[in-house]
């Protein structure tokens, strides 16, 4: 498994076409998830990331497998961009032993250390100081790895954000703090909870660089993360990047997003990260229109197959409840 995961990661790192394909794959799996609930194949909740795929692949492309990533419950896309297979992700969502942690965690809890994905965080903001700690490891050991925290716009108002970034700044840690501003924290539009327009502006309060990035453009995301990571690797400390993006689905399974102003989705969809990146690759001659169609079809088939494999896979037994509690 681990070699497949690493190969998938390497593809995203080295090949923009693979980034495109991965975005398509992420979208395909996320689109299936709601249906799985309807079919009774999953219970509980889930947080999907349709619309935010460019952030996922851009970040993963800019990082090395030895870099550490602290991600949230909205983590399916990041996990797959980092290399996890649809089987690992969907298996976890469905609670099957093929899931990335054996099916005992569920949708919010993915992990694969072979590509640097720490256990994803279901507590808002918790990953921010944890990323500082992972960066501390790199600093103490003298490697040039970096640690990345991914968190939402809503998380920028919680104490852990403030404390984690301040700590990284004062210790000059090799960390990159990436806010995925998808415009909503749960059902609340950001303007109702956050008195400033750009989260990136908070960087000034910690004396570190802050930058607003177009999160719908995988190339721009990649470039911004790569340069913040390079800065961190060379000992110049942390940065705060804000990816302006949008989530197409509701906050979680039960949310149909009735709070959205009319036309908002449509406006964002104009700049759909997958469509626009595909068009760019076609324009650059890296893909043909035919490739685009072929990728859509073959990816859907692959994802369908993974979902079916999950449905047929075993659920963890009672003993699993008692495993990995006290070593």
């Amino acid at each position: 498994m681990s070699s497949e995961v690493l190969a998938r990661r390497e593809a995203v790192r080295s090949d923009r076409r693979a980034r495109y394909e991965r975005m398509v794959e992420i979208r395909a799996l996320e689109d299936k998830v709601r249906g799985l609930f309807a079919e009774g194949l999953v219970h509980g909740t889930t947080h999907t990331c349709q619309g935010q795929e460019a952030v996922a692949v851009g970040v993963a492309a800019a990082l090395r497998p030895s870099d550490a990533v602290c991600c949230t419950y909205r983590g399916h896309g990041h996990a797959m961009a980092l290399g996890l297979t649809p089987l690992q992700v969907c298996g976890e969502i469905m609670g099957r032993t093929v899931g990335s942690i054996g099916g005992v965690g569920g949708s919010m809890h993915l992990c694969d250390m072979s590509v640097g994905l720490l256990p994803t965080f279901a507590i808002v903001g918790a990953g921010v100081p944890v990323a500082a700690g992972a960066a501390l490891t790199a600093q103490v050991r003298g490697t040039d790895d970096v640690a990345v925290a991914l968190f939402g716009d809503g998380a920028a108002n919680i104490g852990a954000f403030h404390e984690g970034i301040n700590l990284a700044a004062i210790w000059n840690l090799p960390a990159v703090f990436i806010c995925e501003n998808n415009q909503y924290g749960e059902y609340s539009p950001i303007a109702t909870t956050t008195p400033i327009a750009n989260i990136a502006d908070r960087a000034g309060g910690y004396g570190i660089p802050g930058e607003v990035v177009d999160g719908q453009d995988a190339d721009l995301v990649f470039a911004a993360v790569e340069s913040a990571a390079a800065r961190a690797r060379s000992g110049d400390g942390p940065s705060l990047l804000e990816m302006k993006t949008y989530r197409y689905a509701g906050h979680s399974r039960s949310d149909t997003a009735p709070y959205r102003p009319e036309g908002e989705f449509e406006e964002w969809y104009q700049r759909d990260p997958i469509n626009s990146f595909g068009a760019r690759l076609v324009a650059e001659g890296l893909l043909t229109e035919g490739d685009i169609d072929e990728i859509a079809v073959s990816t859907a088939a692959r994802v369908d197959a993974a979902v079916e494999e999950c449905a047929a896979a075993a659920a963890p037994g009672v003993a699993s409840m008692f495993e990995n509690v006290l070593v």
Partner: protein
Amino acid sequence: MARMRMNQAIAAAIADEMRANPDVVVFGEDVAVAEGPFKTSAGLLAEFGPLRVRDTPIAEMGFMGAAVGAAATGLRPVTEIMFVEFLGVALDQLVTEAAKFNYLSGGTVTVPMVMRASVGAGLGFGCQHSQVMESWMVGSPGLKIVMVSGPHNAYGLTRAAIRDDNPVAVLEPRALYATRGEVTVGVEGIIPLGRAARPASGDDITLVCGGSTVRTCLAASGDADGWTADVIDLQTLQPWDAETVLNSVRRTGRLATVEECPYSGGWGADIVSTVVAEAFGDLQAPPIRLTAPDVHVPFGKELEQRYLPSAEYVATQVGELLATGEAPAHWWERDGALV
């Protein structure tokens, strides 16, 4: 009397208190416009407006602290912690500030705030969104803790909590939000804090429960073969109604606490230790505790149900206790349990 779901009963209780007292305000994450992730504040914003019903940023320490300050200066805030685990980022304000303010003001300041939180397993939310965590609050003098077990007492206890001059934590099993039941509404429906209820009575054993385990105990004793139980729904966990429990145990001679939390650190241990100290001579068998095991709440429907103490489990354990006079092994200690 009115028939409603538990989440409706909670919203009704808050609304009735807001009508009765302009100092009652409500805030929390998505409790206003969206009416609460569990719809426990349905209708409040529409009726009472944005001055009194507010959405907060995701900042539990911030808004819990704001509740402390508002309560100390005259309001009666009702705040919502969406999942009780989120108190882990805000506990200071509830336990180290609110609960101590009356003492630290020489009795001049009261902090009549309510911290409502959804608790418990059963809905597939995974191990950071499925716990009960009373243990974070028990042992905090100055704080009252309420566990609701259905629409009826959710209404009555919530109203009492809002009227109470102490900070009160109200724990709401989220698996019960959708349960329907008859509710006595109006001031007659208010249920005093500190008193247990006895939803079933019997002679052979006292089953002490609260929150989600009340229906477990009722199901177990309702179907029981050859024994009857006094089922005591604590309702208030701090201070708990020792008199009712002791009177019952003195009569039945046997005690089982039924808790949703892990064995270690669960509140049932407090009940047991008080009962053995006060009523040792009346005990005909060792008091036992039926709990979840000392593990994280697993994801997966079957696993999660297995984690929770079930009615069948209660029946089995009580049956064995009555038959042998000895404490039966926990399910996870039995041969073959883990295969």
